[in-house]
């Protein structure tokens, strides 16, 4: 069976209408804004305090048993190149010099921001990620199937993959030292190691207050924005900066909607699609099949009728022909008899002479 363009569009419209009608209801059920677990913890990174010594990177490497780095942590020339997280680094510090209106270089920390509503967790279909009540987003490698959807979902490009491991590769990302230290009442590795307290650790709500207070006390030192307060619906890691965040390559285009909310309407329509579309499409299929059947029957009937008519006509023609032939034959016989009789009569007269 071939589908006409018109028919296909008709299906699509039907599906779309039913989808949007159901989808709205489904989305309304998820618009409740989750503001994070009330007592959850977080870290505030203040780049005006950071001196770029990489002590935090070294501590992170040590407490998380990460592979030894290619170049030692006290080699600060590493900062001359732009870096990102990889399977051996949960966090990196990048240096930004030649900033407009700022004499000294400023730094930025790149690593998991522990979103209040993590995109990685919402994209993971085996629930390898958990947003714990402590604020940390943890990862369970035992259930991970290695699809790496989380790496695509993360708006900050943080999770990385152990491509070099053949048998049991894991997704690697900062866990806020949840298993290794937080549960034991210890500070995250980077926070404890920092000599200048560029990382402040505490309850997220207190950190927010603290960040605002710092901006109020030193208005010339900071940009009046706490990064992570509302980005992607809020993150457990917060940032203060001396220059606009885009200058230290932190995305300012993310909006305030948490990643799961962006996909919830589409995902909410999945049950509807799964439940209703087969029926709908099968119904349409049945209707079109029936239509075809009727059309076929009608066609057959018509053909039969035409054939019958044609046969009748032919029969009539044949019988007429037969009749004509018989008539001709009779005529010919008659003529022949007549001719023979005449010939015989002639012969008789000649003989009589």
């Amino acid at each position, binding site marked *: 069976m071939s589908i006409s363009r018109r028919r296909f569009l008709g299906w699509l419209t039907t599906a779309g209408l039913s989808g949007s009608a159901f989808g709205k209801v489904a989305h309304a059920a998820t618009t409740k804004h989750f503001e994070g677990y009330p007592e959850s913890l977080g870290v505030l990174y203040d780049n005006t305090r950071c001196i770029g*010594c990489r002590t935090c990177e070294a501590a992170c490497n040590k407490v998380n048993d990460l592979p030894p780095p290619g170049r030692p942590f006290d080699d600060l020339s590493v900062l001359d190149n732009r870096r990102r997280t990889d399977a051996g680094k949960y966090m990196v510090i990048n240096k930004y010099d030649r900033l407009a209106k700022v004499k000294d270089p400023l730094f930025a920390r790149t690593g998991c921001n522990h979103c209040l509503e993590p995109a990685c967790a919402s994209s993971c279909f085996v629930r390898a990620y958990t947003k714990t009540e402590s604020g940390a987003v943890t990862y369970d490698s035992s259930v991970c199937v290695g699809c790496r959807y989380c790496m695509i979902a993360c708006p900050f490009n943080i999770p990385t993959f152990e491509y070099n491991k053949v048998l049991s590769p894991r997704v690697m990302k900062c866990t806020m030292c949840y298993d290794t230290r937080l549960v034991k009442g210890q*500070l995250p590795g980077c926070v404890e190691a920092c000599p200048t*307290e560029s990382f402040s650790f*505490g309850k997220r709500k*207190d950190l927010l207050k*603290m960040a605002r*207070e710092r901006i109020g*006390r*030193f208005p010339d030192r900071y940009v009046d924005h706490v990064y992570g307060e509302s980005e992607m619906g809020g993150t457990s890691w917060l940032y203060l900066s001396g220059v606009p965040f885009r200058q230290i390559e932190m995305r300012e285009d993310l909006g305030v909607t948490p990643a799961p909310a962006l996909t919830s309407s589409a995902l909410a329509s999945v049950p509807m699609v799964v439940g209703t579309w087969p029926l709908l499409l099968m119904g349409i299929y049945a209707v079109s099949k029936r239509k075809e059947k009727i059309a076929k029957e009608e066609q057959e009937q018509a053909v039969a009728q035409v054939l019958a008519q044609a046969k009748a006509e032919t029969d009539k023609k044949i019988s007429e022909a037969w009749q004509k032939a018989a008539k001709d034959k009779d005529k010919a016989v008659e003529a022949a008899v007549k001719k023979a009789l005449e010939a015989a009569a002639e012969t008789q007269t000649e003989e009589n002479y």
Partner: protein
Amino acid sequence: MTKRKSLLMLTGIFITATVVAILTSGAQGVKDVASDSPEVRADVIMIDVLKNFRELEQPPVVFLHDLHTNALVEQNKDCASCHLSEKDLQSPKFKRLTDTSRQEVMDTYHTGCMQCHQEMETAGVKAGPVEKCGDCHHGKPEVVSERQLIVFDKSLHYRHTERTEDKCERCHHQYNEVTKQLFYDKGKEGACVYCHKQQLEENRISIKQASHLSCIACHRKTLAENKEVTPDEDSREKIAGPIQCSGCHAEQKLQLIKKVEDAPGMKRNQPDVALIQPAKIDLDNPNLAPIVVMNPVPFDHKTHQEHNDTCIVCHHASLDKTCSECHTLGGAKDGKFVKLEQAMHQIDSEQSCFGCHTKKQQKPSCAGCHSLLAKGRKQEAAFCAQCHMEPPQAGIGANLEPQAMASMLLRSRTSTPYTYTDEDIPEAVTIEDLEEQYEPVYFPHRKIVRTLLAETKDDKLAQYFHRQKETVCQACHHNSPAAKKPPRCYSCHGKPFDAKEPLRPGMKGAYHQQCFGCHKQMGIKKPDPLNCMECHQEKKKQVATK
């Protein structure tokens, strides 16, 4: 057959040769753009005047003014080639006095520019574009425009008054509303910006137009007068003042302008001292003497004049009114509802006392301590009394005139910076609080105190405001009452991230923030914060005991 083959081969060779020729000629034309950075110029003008009529149809024209002035000079032409004059004043517009209509303005440019370019081309001189529209209308300057605004500071003012032999009327004028004429009113001179604002207002031309018209006209006149005296163009311009854009707007040229270090202040009968007296006028009986509501501030006008480049730093609207005439105690429309208190204390405003003094604290010798102090923190009453001095109630000086009172109060001020004697300042402090990883740190305490004092030795502002013995101590020994023996750091700072005191850094953070912060602000490169060993020593391995 063979003939056809050779013909094909020849055609092939010809085509290949043509392609190669085209490609290589293209390659020759490509400049190495990356290697040379674009030229920085102060004379870039975007000609987009037609946008005042309606949306532009073509990209604006990037016009380099100095390039054209120089070309005219080479041909013995002058400004009049492009700028028309009316009543001895040259219009800044190109070959017209007013913008009449879109078509007319457009035609003026097209005929004016093209005519000259074509004439030059026929004369065999290097000329501007004549052919394609896009040669002018490309909208993409190949140069970087960086225009600085010249500050007509007191040095420059002094040099002008010297040259004109105190003929103030050469520049300063007032406007007579009745006769609609400019006239000179002696003793009422003020800054140009008091009347000439950023934009044209009623009959007052903008400051941009006023400065270009007046300055350049006078410089040109002087240049012409000195034609015989100094035949050399450069030295003549040095005498006459700049005429080209770069002279007033290019950074490197601005730095070449001679600076008279001890230029005397303007001669306008201003007082050397003044008594700023916050007083309230009784609105019901305006004839009564104002009610003094606060201790007055004796103001050393002369010293402030010496330390500032222009009058408009403080006198932002007029020289003829006192601050409190517009900025009344309760705020008034004339003063844009900025109260007297705000006019003097607003920290964000550069015209206020606080604002300007705070700005002065940004220089390295001050910033080490002051950048660590929170902005807008609450001050003690003693702090206010440093400016607001109590006048004598009875006895000598009680009934003095305001100016004499101000002089007397100013004389009574002591401004010698002094702190404790060496015995009271610990010579060194051994910081043992972070002993886990490193050996205790030797901290040369007295040397640091002495360095801080030496840095501000010649600073009158610092000398006056650092009058208490403990003032300099308070940058490090902060948040506790000033005392000879302030609390030790560990009295307040301990483990980091104390939920009860979230803003208080832990011990390690406090030390590093304080030391690094101050060193960075003061531009102290040694010890290097990135090399721990410059302050710390690796902890010696403990001898294992059996």
